[in-house]
């Protein structure tokens, strides 16, 4: 029971711990990296290079008054932040970190992740709706529209990989990449997935549901204390999730030259994408809301369909040729 194997208790516990600690740590990493990219220093006072800032933030957020506005719908208001945490953590269940580490080996891993991502939209929607606040409502409206539409291309862009691998199982998808990562044949799929992933985790530059400059803090305007912290950590968990998914689907997961253990390869690749997401936040401006929508439906949707069509045709031709 206490060995690393898919689904063992040790495996599950270490994934849960690692992912949550990482998400909390990312708050600090992001602030530090953002400030380097803006020629500042960022939080560097608490602990070594400021790493204990995370602990300080935690203490602050845990000791804050747990407040529910009197005009809010109490049950939904409390429930909403929990949903996003649960849903994102559930998605990690199907991610194959290494050959040994993972929670389940699901046949429908890809679909499970997509389903969980759709459920994540509820958290944001309900959070905004139950706050009974105009800004929050606007934010959750935007979130609903954005997440529903970007989910479409997210799913379609993945299908290219699924067609190539011939499986919905993420572990098998990684294993079929032993002789070539899917980034090469599926470059367009990768780009679309990257963009949709940013939109799905509503990170900048697609943080339209919570655009501070336009609508306060969007759907979490009324949230404070740990409930806000859950949204916050949920967002970072989403960031880790999307980075892991990109690694698994397009960059060969744990595969890599044997001089480093698989988990290191996985972390390196995922870490690279996390950094890339932070860089995007530092560099790119937010599009207008209608721009985001028309960009998605008029450009990304046809492109992803085309990508799927071409991939399917190529696979069909090559398999019938070999038969």
């Amino acid at each position, binding site marked *: 029971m206490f060995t690393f194997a898919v689904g063992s208790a040790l495996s599950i516990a270490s994934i849960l711990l690692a992912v949550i600690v990482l998400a909390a740590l990312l708050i600090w990493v992001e602030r530090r990296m953002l400030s380097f*990219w803006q020629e500042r220093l960022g939080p560097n006072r608490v602990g070594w290079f400021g790493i204990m800032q995370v602990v300080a933030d935690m203490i602050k957020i845990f000791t804050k008054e747990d407040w529910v506005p009197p005009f809010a719908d109490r049950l939904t208001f409390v429930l909403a932040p929990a949903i996003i945490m649960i849903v994102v953590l559930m998605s990690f269940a199907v991610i194959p970190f290494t050959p040994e580490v993972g929670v389940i080996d699901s046949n429908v891993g890809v679909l499970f992740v997509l389903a969980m991502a759709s459920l994540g939209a509820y958290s944001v929607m309900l959070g905004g709706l139950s706050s009974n606040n105009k800004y929050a409502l606007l934010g959750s409206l935007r979130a609903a529209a954005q997440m529903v539409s970007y989910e479409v291309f997210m799913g379609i862009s993945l299908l290219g990989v699924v067609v190539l691998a011939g499986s919905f199982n993420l572990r098998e998808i990684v294993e079929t990449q032993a002789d070539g990562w899917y980034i090469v044949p599926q470059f367009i799929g990768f780009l679309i997935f990257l963009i949709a992933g940013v939109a799905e985790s509503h990170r900048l530059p697609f943080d339209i549901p919570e655009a501070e400059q336009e609508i306060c803090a969007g759907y979490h305007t009324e949230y404070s204390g740990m409930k806000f912290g859950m949204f916050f950590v949920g967002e970072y968990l989403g960031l880790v999730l999307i980075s892991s998914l990109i690694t698994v689907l397009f960059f060969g997961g744990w595969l890599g030259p044997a001089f480093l253990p698989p988990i290191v390869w996985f972390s390196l690749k995922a870490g690279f994408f996390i950094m890339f997401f932070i860089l995007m936040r530092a*560099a790119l401006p937010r599009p207008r809301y209608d721009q985001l929508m028309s960009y998605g439906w008029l450009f990304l949707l046809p492109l992803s369909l085309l990508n799927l069509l071409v991939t399917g045709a190529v696979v069909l031709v090559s398999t019938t040729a070999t038969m």
Partner: protein
Amino acid sequence: MFRLIKDTLLSQAVTLWGVFRKLFVKADTVQYPDEQPYMFPRWRGRIILSRDPDGEERCVACNLCAVACPVDCIALQKAETEDGRWYPEFFRINFSRCIMCGFCEEACPTNAIQLTPDFEMAEYVRQDMVWEKEDLLIDGVGKYHDYNFYRVAGKQVAGKDKGEALNEAEPVDVRSLLP
């Protein structure tokens, strides 16, 4: 189509690269309490009252600074010594209202009131932000080393009669008919 790709992907990539390169640029931050920033001599900070080269108070209690002050944070009362010099009996600046605009320094005819590069004036008790003349008055001449108001002004004080100031003409003898 080409424009769309250029706008959506290429320009974003260029921006990303430009920002990424900032990683290797030294940060602008001055880590203040550990590193002291260089304060320029003209910085408008803590206000002082200076003395003239003879060591006398420069302020002549003309009230011009108090009038110029946009937030009315200077209060003073004129008094006079036996030898005819004017001086402020009290001189009070409420630094919790002062906006460090420097208008008082501009208005002052005697260069008495001056702003200095010191800015570390935080206090725990608000009342401590009110500075009296003892706190403001320094022993030096501040930024203007040679200026001595009573030596250039026409006012008569002990040790300097009318017409004895720098560049000052003899007083006109109103009873004489000679040109």
